[in-house]
């Protein structure tokens, strides 16, 4: 039963894909009416204007572009033109730094806050206010105070991905079952040992959930931040291709961004499964 279900789901997925691609191809293949132009004039105009070809690329164009990028992902032709692999590496590096910092801050701080109901209540309003702030709202402030655009991008990732982890850690730590803590107290376990052997395993699934939400946010933020500060990274790549009005490349990068985001998410999902325990 389980096998046939996944088989059927797979077939349905593929059918949907085929349907989407087909619909896409049909939607863009029609050509608009064009006026008759004299050849000298037409030579100066783009295809959209001369042949009425849709400005939206079809799946075949996108496929060709993806292939072109995959064939040579690591080229470097000066500071403003690098392969998609190089751009991804820059973005992932920035996310790793900003997100790593956020983990280092959010989990210990979350632990401390979670163990004290007083702190938990007192800090809650601040966390709630800072949590929903958009990354782009932080950007001007970061650029102004840090005075370095790549550090600003990392700071923005940090500040945006720290909150879900912090909240989840607090929640997980505060929600450790009373019985377990009482058992630890009865056995006269030292506070540090209690934190690592009782609270941490108990809170781990919730913490990992927070980390998973955060990595998604970090990956969302990096694209926006790089579009703004420019220079390198997949966000800059999107901006640069938008500048060229190359929808084909923009679609390509949307796919790539989605793919990398999924991989990052799945990595943390794996980790989450490792620490989950049956109640």
């Amino acid at each position, binding site marked *: 039963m389980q096998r046939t279900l996944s088989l059927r789901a797979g077939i349905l997925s593929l059918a949907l894909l085929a349907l989407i691609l087909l619909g896409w191809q049909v939607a863009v293949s029609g050509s608009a009416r064009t*006026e008759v*132009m*004299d050849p*000298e*004039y037409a*030579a*100066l*105009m*783009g295809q*959209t*204007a001369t042949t009425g070809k849709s*400005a939206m690329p079809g799946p075949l164009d996108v496929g060709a572009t993806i292939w072109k990028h995959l064939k040579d992902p690591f080229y470097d*032709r*000066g*500071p*403003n*033109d690098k392969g998609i692999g190089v751009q991804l590496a820059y973005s992932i590096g920035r996310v790793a730094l900003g997100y790593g910092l956020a983990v280092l801050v959010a989990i210990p701080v979350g632990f401390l806050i979670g163990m004290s109901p007083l702190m938990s209540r007192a800090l809650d309003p601040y966390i709630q206010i800072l949590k929903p702030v958009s990354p782009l709202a932080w950007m*001007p402030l970061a*650029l*102004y105070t840090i*005075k*370095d*655009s790549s550090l600003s991008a990392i700071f923005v990732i940090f500040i945006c991905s720290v909150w879900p982890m912090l909240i989840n850690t607090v929640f997980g730590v505060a929600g450790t079952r009373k019985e377990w803590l009482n058992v630890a107290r009865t056995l006269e376990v030292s506070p540090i040992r209690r934190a690592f052997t009782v609270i941490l395993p108990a809170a781990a699934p919730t913490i990992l959930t927070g980390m998973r939400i955060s990595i998604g946010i970090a990956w969302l933020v990096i694209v926006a931040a790089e*579009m*703004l*500060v*420019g*220079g390198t990274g997949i966000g*800059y790549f999107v*901006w*640069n*291709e*938008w*500048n*060229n*009005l190359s929808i084909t490349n923009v679609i390509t990068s949307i796919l790539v961004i989605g793919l990398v985001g999924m991989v990052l998410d799945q990595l943390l999902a794996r980790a989450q499964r490792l620490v989950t325990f049956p109640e």
Partner: protein
Amino acid sequence: MALFDNPFDARRRFARGGCSCGAHETQAAHEAARPTGDAAIERAVEATMMRALFPHQAERRAFLRSVGLSTAAAAVSQFLPTKFVAEAFAEAGKPEKTDLKVGFIPITCATPIIMAKPMGFYEKQGLNVDVVKTAGWAVVRDKTLNKEYDAAHMLAPMPLAITMGLGSNPVPFAVPAIENVNGQAICLANKHKDNRDPKNWKGFKLAIPFDYSNHNYLLRYYLAEHGIDPDTDVQLRSVPPPEMVANLRADNIDGFLAPDNVVQRAVYDGVGFIHILSKEIWDGHPCCSFSVAQDTIREMPNATAALLRAILQATAYASKTENRKEIAAAIAPANYLNQPVTVVEQVLTGTYADGLGSVKKDPKRVAFDPFPYESFAIWTLTQMKRWGQIKGDVDYAAVAKQVYRATDAARLMKQDGLTPPEATTKTFVVMGKTFDPAKPEEYLESFKIKRAS
């Protein structure tokens, strides 16, 4: 207060009868005691800044009395450009730093800055320059203020705005070279093909690249001359150039006055047509500038001078029409403008499709003339004041002289065997009206539609 009086003196009045400071028996004796030379210009800049900070005399006097003279002078000079770059552009010496970063926005205005890289003008000066594409004007400004860029491509009014602290902290900037003159156009959506009279443009949504741009001032000027009040009759939006074509296609805007390749790209993609070129508003108007912080010039005078030499040489090369095709091919690739070559070529050679079905030929569509005439800055300042971006009195000549480094450019051009113009100011004609840089206030007075009181 006379121009060269000490503006930090609380007792001094801006308007006066007799000797303005009270320390001299007659006005003649007062005048004789005034500073001269560079000190005089410095004092004039200080006075302008104090006027801008404290448009009301009572406030200025109260401020000076309450904090004391020296504190006020220190506080104000800390963030106001009262010291001069003076003789910073020294004789050709060894550059203090050879790895430089120059920011640019991907439009054809940046041609000299960009082409100097692939065509080896920087290299010839012994510099290793990275030209870095940047996402928008505000980001260029911030990265240059942060010193991430040693110099940058900015809209010609931006260094004036930055120096005076409009829209950012006041940081003294310099424009040692203009990049291009002309080369912009008003582009309208195809649906307005039969609506070419600006008088009928009430309710239009028009885009400009930035608030502090000559595009903004030229479009406002053009509209106002046709009886359209740019603040109330139409909506002007600041939109980064790359987004303009997309917005025009999406019907979010009716048109824009934008830098080129953007305009030509709209034509190329069949979404808009060229209503008029900006040279039909003011033939020979400056658009973009090569801008450096005055601090940077002071810190590394030789490197900035070498950079400027490369820019001046590149501009001279670009000013010859026979070189334009070669330049178009050099700057169109993804590393620079990232545009189809034919679009860039149409802009630079001036043989272009106008979007209405005909091929136009105008070799002067864009021209390259590096000389930063002070009168350009004065005109820009009159328009900033006209539309309420600057409040209070402006010492046009002093600010212009401080930011637009015509004298420095002339000296470097001479050293390099180029011929600079004789004078650092000139009169010019904007839509049939002559602008005399010596009489900015009268010019401003002559407009019917304006925000300045």
